[in-house]
């Protein structure tokens, strides 16, 4: 298993109940798989998760991106700034 952190914003943070989650995931897990892990852990996150964007270490990534030890994943629900 590898250890990563996930940071949550806005409505996603409210559902998860905190800013940051440290979790262990299998090696070779990609973003799409992480998303499923998070939905299992937090079922109310599903609607947001399906339309969320993701960044790893402050760079936007596609959902096939593989995660490595110590990555910081940002879970970015649909934006509403401006």
């Amino acid at each position, binding site marked *: 298993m590898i250890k990563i952190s996930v940071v949550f*914003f806005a409505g996603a943070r409210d559902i998860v109940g905190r800013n940051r989650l440290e979790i262990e995931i299998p090696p070779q897990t990609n973003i799409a798989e992480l998303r499923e892990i998070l939905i299992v852990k937090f079922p109310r996150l599903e609607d947001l998760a399906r339309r969320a964007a993701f*960044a790893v270490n402050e760079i936007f990534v596609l959902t096939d991106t593989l995660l490595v030890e110590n990555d910081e994943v940002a879970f970015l629900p649909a934006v509403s*700034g401006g």
Partner: protein
Amino acid sequence: MRIKLTNEPIVHHDMVENCRCKSAGAIVLFLGTVREITGNEQTLSLEYEAFAPLAEKTLIEIAEQAKSKWGIQKLEIIHRLGILQPGETSIAVCVSTPHRADAFAACQQIMDKIKEVVPIWKKETSPKGVSNWIHPKI
């Protein structure tokens, strides 16, 4: 080119003056302001939150792309964070270009992209005290 997130009120006068230059014939300033009424719903306040490092980086990318596409001479983007009252400015984009059609197109396209991709969110509080994060695609 100045791009920033801020907790302070946005001073649009300075943004326009910073964009004024002798090579430009047009300056367009856009302000997004907190609207009190949307349909039948009333807004008491909005709270803006950003994933700041990525939001700034994304704003800079949007700005760089627009600069080369539209012949922008000068450009400023400021996004306010924190709690805002109706009427206050949440975002300001100012561009100058040699000709006016480019200034309008550039400013509008920058705003469209900001709304689409920059990791900033708003939470709306109604007069009854109910607060909701806005996630438009849900």
